[in-house]
C-alpha cells in the first residue's frame, strides 16, 4: 500500500521515520515515548495478575519492553500495510513485549511440572449420578488419549498450557522457542485429542 492510501497521521509518521537524521531521530524519540506510555498502561492494567512483581521491576520491564518494541517497529517498518493506523500497529508491539515479559516475570520462581491432581478436579462432582459417570468416562478417555496419541513434547505442552494453565510465553522461554511454535504444538495436540475422542465415541460431547 502506498502512503497516499494512509490516513494523514500515519503518512506523517512514515515520512518522519524515513526522513533525514534530525527529523528521523525526533520521530524515533516520539515513538519511543508513545511505546513507553503504552507499556506502562499495559503493566498497570495487568497489575492484579502481577502483584508478586515489585514496582521497580515493573518499571525496568516497561523500559526494556518499549525499547524492544521500538526496535521491532523500526525493523518491520517496510511491512506496515496500513490496515490500521500506524500508532495502533506500533502499539501492538509494545503490548506484546510488555505482556510477554510480565507473564514470564510472574512465573519466574514457579516450576512447570505436570500436576496429576488435575484429573480429580476435572471430573465435575455436582451433576446427578448418570452425568457424573459420563463425566468420569470422558475424563478417563481424555487421559488415555493424552497418553496414547501425543508425542512426549506434545504431552508436556498440552498438560502445561491446557491443564495447568502455564502461559505459552513462559513455556516458550523455558523451551527456547517462540510463542507461535508452542501454540502450534498445542494446536496439533488438541487436534489429535479431538480425533481420538471422536473415535472413542465422544464426538457429541465436544465443543
Amino acid at each position: 500500500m502506498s502512503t497516499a492510501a494512509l490516513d494523514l497521521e500515519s503518512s506523517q509518521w512514515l515520512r518522519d521515520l524515513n526522513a533525514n537524521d534530525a527529523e528521523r531521530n525526533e520521530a524515533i524519540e516520539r515513538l519511543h515515548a508513545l511505546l513507553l506510555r503504552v507499556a506502562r498502561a499495559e503493566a498497570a492494567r495487568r497489575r492484579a495478575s502481577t502483584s508478586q512483581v515489585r514496582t521497580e521491576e515493573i518499571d525496568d520491564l516497561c523500559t526494556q519492553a518499549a525499547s524492544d518494541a521500538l526496535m521491532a517497529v523500526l525493523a518491520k517498518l517496510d511491512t506496515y500495510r496500513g490496515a490500521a493506523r500506524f500508532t495502533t500497529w506500533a502499539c501492538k508491539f509494545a503490548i506484546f513485549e510488555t505482556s510477554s515479559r510480565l507473564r514470564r516475570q510472574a512465573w519466574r520462581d514457579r516450576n512447570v511440572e505436570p500436576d496429576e491432581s488435575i484429573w480429580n478436579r476435572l471430573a465435575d462432582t455436582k451433576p446427578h449420578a448418570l452425568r457424573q459417570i459420563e463425566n468420569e468416562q470422558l475424563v478417563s478417555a481424555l487421559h488415555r488419549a493424552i497418553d496414547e496419541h501425543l508425542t512426549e513434547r506434545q504431552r508436556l505442552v498440552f498438560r502445561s498450557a491446557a491443564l495447568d494453565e502455564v502461559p505459552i510465553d513462559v513455556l516458550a522461554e523455558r523451551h527456547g522457542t517462540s510463542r507461535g511454535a508452542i501454540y502450534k504444538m498445542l494446536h496439533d495436540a488438541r487436534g489429535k485429542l479431538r480425533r481420538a475422542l471422536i473415535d472413542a465415541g465422544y464426538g457429541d460431547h465436544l465443543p
Partner: protein
Amino acid sequence: MTNFDLEKLLGAAGADPGCDAAGELMDAYCEAIANGGPVAPQFDEFVRHMRNCTACREDTEGLLAILQQQKESDER
C-alpha cells in the same frame, strides 16, 4: 466436565491461524471494534484463535484498552 472446560482443553472446532497470523490482524481487528463497526468475516479465524489462545486474547484486550484510552482522551 462442562463444555466450557472442554473448549478450554481442546479449543474451539474450526480453522485457527495461530499466534503469528493472528498477530498480523490484531491491530485492524482492534480498530474495527474500537470504532464500533461490524466485525468483518475476515476476522472469523482471528476470533476463533482468541478463544483458543489466552496470551493472544490478553494482548488483544490490552490493545483495545489503549485504543479506548486514546478515544476518551481525544473526546476530552
